[in-house]
């Protein structure tokens, strides 16, 4: 059965004064129905650009190239703008990081929840309202009907994010892309939102592409994970496989620098990855991580091939090294 989302060879370049900024370099992955794929990496690694590229929401200065981009079997690589617009908010939806500014201050919640439903499904105001109330209640919002009449500035951050999620689910989408949906929220609210996402997936069978920099979130919700660095995916596989035996030095660096429940031994040292992310402007060859890698070899300046095992792949020339190699 064709995967829900199939991406191969995605490239995003942004025009800048001194040349081209390679925000996303040859990214490939798949998302299946009822499964969650987490895209992990630090800020600036290109995860948000990837998501925007999929949705057709890139800024005008950005150029996208892709070998294959298929959603539910339909190729979107050269889809027209209105085709993308009819899919967005309907079959494929996105939830963003900042709930505080993501809603229009001039209109009520009800109005903004209903408009997508009425546009894509041609429903009446009443039907859209009912659907909105139904979703809000499912998301744990009480007094949902009264809430519809409220304005965004009258709601808290956690509430707004639930509204954003409800807004995304209004038309019963197949794919949900969530860009750091809990980063701007309190820890307790974070946990609630994540639990909600898991339940929704279970109930509706939607595929979720979850973007985050937080390995804890990955451990909790992801079936599979893809680690991004400097615009490319350096390691991917099932969460269990990657967490049990991270192969790429960057992934290992991440693991040791962030305490992961169940993994980090109590009283153990937290590592740090020295150096900074390389410039994404201009020509880039070979492994982007080599300047910060303790095990770099001359061969790392040449393009590095993808190596795959069962349920696990990575982009590194090194043989599987001892489990506790240090990266400092």
């Amino acid at each position, binding site marked *: 059965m064709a995967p829900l989302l199939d991406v191969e060879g995605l490239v995003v370049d*942004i*025009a*800048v*004064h*001194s040349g081209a*900024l390679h925000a996303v370099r040859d990214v490939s992955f798949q998302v299946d129905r009822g499964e969650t794929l987490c895209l992990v990496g630090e800020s600036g690694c290109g995860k*948000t650009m990837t998501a925007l590229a999929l949705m057709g929401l890139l*800024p005008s*200065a*950005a150029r996208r190239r892709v070998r294959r981009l298929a959603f539910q079997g339909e190729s979107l690589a050269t889809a027209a703008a209105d085709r993308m617009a009819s899919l967005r908010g309907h079959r494929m939806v996105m939830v*963003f*990081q900042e709930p505080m500014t993501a809603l229009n201050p001039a209109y009520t919640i009800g109005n903004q929840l209903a408009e997508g439903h009425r546009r894509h499904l041609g429903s009446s105001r009443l039907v859209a309202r009912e659907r909105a109330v139904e979703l809000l209640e499912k998301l744990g919002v009480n007094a949902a009907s009264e809430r519809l009449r409220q304005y965004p500035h009258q709601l808290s951050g956690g509430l707004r994010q639930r509204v954003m999620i409800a807004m995304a689910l209004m038309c019963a989408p197949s794919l949900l892309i969530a860009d750091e949906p809990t980063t701007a929220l309190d820890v307790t609210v974070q946990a609630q939102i994540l639990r909600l996402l898991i339940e929704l997936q279970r109930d509706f069978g939607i595929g979720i592409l979850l973007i985050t920099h937080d390995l804890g979130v990955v451990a909790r919700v992801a079936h599979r994970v893809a680690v991004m660095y400097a615009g490319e995916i350096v390691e991917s596989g099932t969460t269990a496989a990657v967490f049990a035996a991270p192969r790429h030095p960057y992934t290992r660096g991440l693991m040791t620098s962030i305490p992961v429940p169940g993994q980090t031994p109590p009283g153990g040292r937290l590592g740090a990855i020295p150096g900074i992310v390389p410039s994404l*402007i201009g020509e880039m060859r070979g492994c982007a991580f080599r300047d910060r890698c303790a095990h770099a070899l001359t061969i790392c300046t040449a393009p590095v091939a993808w190596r795959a095992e069962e349920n696990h792949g990575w982009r590194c020339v090194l043989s599987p090294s001892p489990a506790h190699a240090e990266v400092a």
Partner: protein
Amino acid sequence: MSDLVAVPLIDAPGTLPRTLLRRRVLAHKGLLIGVGLLTLATFIALLAPLIAPHDPYAQDLAHRLIPPIWQEKGAWAHVLGTDNLGRDYLSRVLYGARISLLIGLAVMVISGLIGTILGLTAGYFGGRIDMAITFITTVRLAMPVILVALAVVATIGSSLLVVILVLGLLRWDRFAIVIRAATQQVRALDYVTAAQATGASTLRIIFGECFPNILPQLVVIATVEAANAILLEAALSFLGLGIQPPLPSWGLMIAEAKQYMFFSFWLIAIPGTALALLVFAINMVGDGIRDVTAPAGRM
């Protein structure tokens, strides 16, 4: 993520601010055009006595209302024709440039001085001083400039000097408002606090730290006000209550030509176009300076 739009403006790290500025200036066509036109106007104004073919005040009633060179009866003796008193139009236009530029400059300086001092004071000290100055500015804003200017000029009697003084003493409000806001912004920055901490005198802080940083905005508003002053003087002269004949103020020339407008439209078109071009040039320069010194807020 809403700063994605600004991405194309990244420059390579390590470039000198001066180089960046020069690069931006040279790339900004509007600014270059404006500066070019303005320089031309300045040269004309300064060299008018040398390049004007005739005396702008010399009347020649035998050769009234000769059309400019591109019309049938035009002659090379008077490239832009003559007016109703036989005065050479080209010469009058050239001399008119002196008047307009002088007005623009003088009013800008006077109102700029008043407004900047008020704005700096209000913005830096805040509190009661700020309230008082803001009150004064509000009162001044409430008074209709043209009406008051007209009334004063009508009673005192008008001349170039009177027009300059009246406009200069009335038009400082924009300066005060903009400079006050700019000063408030700058004042909140750390280096001002640092200067205060080292015991620098207030005057020194205002002129040493605040002033250089509000300079770009000051320049922009100065160009706007210069342009406005030129247009205001033209309007006043047009109504007969500004510069008096026989001075070749462009606004006055239009007024004098009004009755001959239907058959000799060039008498109006030429000074009108001259005014428009001069104001256009000044606005281009102002816009350009603003774009070049604050690209993040580019309009």
